[in-house]
Every structure is written in structure tokens, then in C-alpha cells.
């Protein structure tokens, strides 16, 4: 099994750390993983994306131009990556701020209203965990337990107390994801 994922959105949306938790979770269940971020000069705002690969085998190229799954959190990223999803693959996005919705017919498209939900639950900081939950619901490539382990590994000491909130957000994300037809 190999899963090739791109996660893309604004800087500050937690794109990189979502990828990192996913990668950690993979390690927890003995998979090979790679996590390849876009990087640029330090500036708040701007876009960010990360390619995550989870595989049972040695990972060759960590750089991809097509993906099994795209997780998309803003319009620019949708414009850039919609076409890069492999036929038959999946695109998960948050409709908040999206003006031109995805149109491909040869892939599965899902929505998670993570921004709205996180505001509703006053949990803006865990916004990315709603998205992660949604993804895991659709692609349970890593178990929930391993995700929690991954979370624990990837959060620095001073943020460990946030784990319960994160867990909650993941679970909620699993509930609110819905397929677009």
C-alpha cells in the first residue's frame, strides 16, 4: 500500500503540522513515510503545502507531480492541485473562501467545513484537526490510536495539554465530512 498526499493552504493553517502528524502516525504503524514541504522566505501569510507519502515499501521519489489525495484549504491551492489528483483519486476541501469549486468528474470530491466548525466550537487552533479527521474517515490508512500517538510525538512539551482538544476535533471532523456529487 502506498498513499501519496498533498496538503495545501495558507501559511498558518497548520498544513505542515497536519502532514507531520500523518507521517508520525504512519511511523507508529511501521510504515515508511516522507514529508516534503514547500519552503520559502520567512513571511506570515503566503501559501504552504506539503507532500506526504505513507507506504509499506521503501519510498523512492519524495517529489511528486500527481497524488492519490489532495487536501485543499484555499482557492490558490485548489487552482494549483485539482488537476494533479490521479484519476480515481480523492480531493478533500474546505469550502470556506472557495469561489470556484472543484469540477473534475474522474475523482471523488469531499467537503469538510472545518473553518466554520472550528469557529462554532471556539476551537480555531485545532482547525487542521477537523480536516485530518475528515481525511481519516475517508482513508483510514492509519488507526485513530496511532494518530493520537503521532500527535503526542509531534507536539512539543508545552502543547501536550492540547491533545484532548485535538482528539475531539479529529472525531468531529470524521462526522462532518460529506461527499460532493
Amino acid at each position: 500500500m502506498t498513499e501519496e498526499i498533498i496538503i495545501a493552504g495558507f501559511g498558518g493553517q497548520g498544513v505542515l503540522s497536519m502532514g507531520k502528524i500523518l507521517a508520525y502516525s504512519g511511523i507508529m504503524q511501521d510504515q515508511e513515510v516522507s514529508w516534503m514541504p514547500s519552503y520559502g522566505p520567512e513571511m506570515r501569510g503566503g501559501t504552504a503545502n506539503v507532500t506526504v507519502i505513507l507506504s509499506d515499501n521503501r519510498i523512492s521519489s519524495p517529489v511528486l507531480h500527481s497524488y492519490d489525495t489532495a487536501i485543499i484549504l484555499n482557492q490558490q491551492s485548489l487552482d494549483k492541485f485539482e488537476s494533479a489528483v490521479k484519476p480515481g483519486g480523492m480531493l478533500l476541501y474546505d469550502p470556506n473562501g472557495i469561489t470556484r469549486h472543484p469540477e473534475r468528474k474522474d475523482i471523488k470530491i469531499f467537503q469538510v467545513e472545518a473553518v466554520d466548525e472550528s469557529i462554532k466550537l471556539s476551537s480555531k487552533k485545532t482547525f487542521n484537526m477537523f480536516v485530518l479527521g475528515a481525511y481519516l474517515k475517508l482513508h483510514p490508512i492509519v488507526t485513530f490510536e496511532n494518530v493520537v500517538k503521532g500527535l503526542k510525538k509531534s507536539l512539543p512539551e508545552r502543547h501536550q495539554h492540547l491533545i484532548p482538544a485535538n482528539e475531539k476535533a479529529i472525531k468531529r471532523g470524521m462526522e462532518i465530512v460529506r461527499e460532493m456529487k
Partner: protein
Amino acid sequence: MKEIALIKGNEAIAEAAIRTGVDAYFGYPITPQSEVLEYLQLQKPEERTGMVVLQAESELAAINMVYGAAGTGKKVMTTSSSPGISLMQEGISYIAGAELPCLIVNVVRGGPGLGTIQPSQADYFQATKGGGHGDYRLIVLAPASVQEMADFVDLAFELAFKYRNPALILSDGLIGQMMEKVELPEPKERFTTFDQSWVITGKTADRERNIITSLNLDPELQYEHNIKLQQKYERMKEDVMFESFQTDDADFLLVAYGSSARICQKVVDVVRGRGKKLGLLRPITLFPFPTEVISELSRRVKGILSVEMSTGQMVEDVRLAANGRVPVYHYGTFGGKIHSPEDVLNAIEEKFIGGF
């Protein structure tokens, strides 16, 4: 049991340095490798192992701190990226001339000039042919994974001390910024068993002064010194390293190092999937270059494609190895653009006409 971590290539270098008993790091921030210094400072290596870490005022200062510290016979390193490495060329030439072991890491970005901060492999010539003046060579290792970023730190020092020669890890922004699962190296004593007779420790009554210098005003002596260096560079061939992927029965051969080799691995998988016999030779040491194995393979394959994120640098060494026996092509992206497996596939189709 080995300790597993998910860390960036740059962090792997730093963590490996602490664990394998590197004595000192001198460096200056530059993207895409600043994490090395940042990680080290966060880890308080002074407390963990006594390792010295100092942010220098420039790369020029950093390489000269390395030069000074390397004379103490300890394991000393620096890291930088392309423009910073260019600034170090005089210092590197001095270190090579004075025959000091040390480690320099270049996490290459796109050039020339300020260029981009995206990954590139366009510093191959500089690394392998001597970007500084005079006839010298560095031991050059090209990691292709975060694991190798961790592993090559100690390997580089082993080789550096074996030959009393600076070693350079030629990485790039892709491997530096990427995270992978890494088996962290076993902690190692901060101690080397290498010959330390040449080291500056303060002259005691029982020996002559030890002097670290690259100067020989008498050209006859400098000539002798150069011959000694050349012989050393020849000897290094015994430590040539490479990795072969399905080269045994290959009709066509890719040659690629570092991150390009990762991308080419995927290409080999795809092409083999189509039933065509493509192989990949990955030089691990870029100096000494695996000339012999490529020369050998050039007797068996129909063509060779050198794949690099440059406008064509390693391809010259591949051509020198093939020595006209088969056509040697170059495919490359550059300027911070990374080629995808698809790009390389296209190039293969184009070059090896009828081959696939």
C-alpha cells in the same frame, strides 16, 4: 533497539553530529539549512556532550573557525548553502592544503548568484573539482535520504580522519527540508582513535613543534606536497561508494546522485514495469567518483543518461568514465526547479529513441 525519529534532513545532520561525538560546529544561517544551527542550539549540545556550537559572524569566519579548530585534531564541522559555500572557497583550499580533517555540508540551492532558495545540484563542479584555487580534492558524499543525512556525518568524519582531508556532504534543499523516518545513530564517545601526532596541543619537550600550514615558499617543497596530496587522492579510490539498482541486465543506464537518484528510482520502477531493462547507478561518493563501475557498465549498456538538477556537470565525469564507448546524455532541470519522475521518463523516451 535503535531510536526512530521523524525529522528533517537538516535536523538529522545536527542530531547525528551530537550523537556521533562531533566536537564543534561553527556556522552562519542561510536557507535552506538554518535548521542545523537552530536544532543544535535547541538541543544544548554543550550540556549533552560538551559539543561546542557557535554562530559565526559570516561563512568566512565559520570556515576559518573550522580550520583553526580542526587543527586540534577534534571533529569539527560547518554547514551552509551555495552562496555561503562559495565564500568558503579560500578557507576550504587552505584546509585541504594543510590536510586537516573536517566536515563541510552544502545544502545546495539554485544559482548562480542569489538565485533561489529551492533545491539544486548545480554545485557539483565546485564540490568535486575544487571551487577554490590550486590542485586539491574534497571527499564528497551525496546522501539521498534523511537516513543518509544522519549516517554520513560519522562516515564523513571516518574518511576525513583516515585521509586527513576535508569531507563535504553535498546535499540539497529537498533532502535538507524533507522529513523521513530515521534510525538515529548510536551515541558514540566524543573521541577519535586517529593519529593525533600532528595536532596543535602546545609543544612539549619531547617533540618538535606541530605546525598547521599550507605554505611552502619553496616551490620544490610545494611540488612534493602536491605529489603527496595527489597520491592521497588516488588512494581514496579504495573508498569509492555507489549503489546499483537493477544494473545487472540493464540495456540503458541512468546515473544520478542524491535527490535526483530518488526520483530516478521511481523512474526505474515505472520503466521496468513496462518490461524495459533500465538500471540506475547512484554514486554515493562523488569524489572519488565511481569511474570504474561506470566504465564497466558502459561496455554493456547501449546508452547512459546522467540526470542532475543542473545544466550538466556530473555528466562530464560520466562521459570521462564511458570514454566514448556509448552515447552519454544529460537530462536536467535547474535553477531550483525539481524534476518529477515524469520529466525524466520523457527525457528517456526522447534520448533513447526506440529504447523504450
